């Protein structure tokens, strides 16, 4: 399986994530889009670390980066969903486009 194939998968995932983020109305689904983008980046990181590995020995930054990315994604999801819950409790909806009291 060539690196380019892996990278292509990552690119597709990223664009799907981007699409999902822009068009979705539901805050949770936007978060899902973000998760997609992060996963795409993770694939990239791993693929590139292996790619460059070919030459100068075991290169671990890429993998370390992925570890931290996964970790941070979890933390972020926690806080984001907590906020979504508090919004839901107050406004009864999670549709992002109905929350427009803050505008102009």
């Amino acid at each position: 399986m060539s690196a380019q194939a892996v990278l292509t998968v990552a690119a597709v995932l990223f664009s799907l994530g981007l699409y999902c983020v822009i068009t979705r109305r539901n805050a949770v689904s936007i978060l899902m889009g973000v998760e997609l983008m992060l996963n795409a980046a993770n694939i990239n990181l791993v693929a590139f670390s292996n790619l460059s590995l070919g030459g100068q020995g075991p290169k671990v930054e890429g993998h370390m980066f992925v570890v931290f990315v996964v970790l941070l994604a979890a933390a972020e999801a926690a806080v984001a969903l907590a906020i979504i819950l508090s919004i839901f409790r107050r406004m009864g909806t999670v549709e992002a486009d109905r929350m427009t009291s803050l505008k102009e």
Partner: protein
Amino acid sequence: MAEAVVFYIIAAFTIGTACVTAFSGNIIRSAFSLLGTLVGVAAMFGMMGADFLAVIQVMIYVGGVMVLILFAVMLTHRIKDVNVSNRSLPAFPGAAVAVLVLGVLLYGIWYGLPGDTARVEAKMTPLIGKALVGSHVLPFLASGLVLLIALIGSVVIARREETFVCGPGEAKR
């Protein structure tokens, strides 16, 4: 050769579930399809020899983040209207941006980068362990701190508050 076939299956599975997540009308279905995508990514990590990452992916992403998202979906939607519509805004602008970015990326990948394999032989896990306390000790500690404040923050926000505080000065009006 078998290895290539397996990779293609996994890639197809991942991209397929990702498409469902992105395009499906029902939020529940897109949530579960996201679960599939994450597993697919974990499999790819395995394929590329990053087994430690695959495990991490499964444990944290699938176990943690997905559970959270499902909880959120469940809590924010009354059970009875399961097929709650996940209406989306007009597709065109988003699609245009996504496709353009994809095009540039693919162009870059296919023509700009060498084609050698992404598989690695070396065992990465011990290296990751050594790096965690070696070169990457600062991020390691900092991420601990991040988890702590994520915990505090989400608890503070999500806690059901007894006295509702109104906005600045509203009490005065």
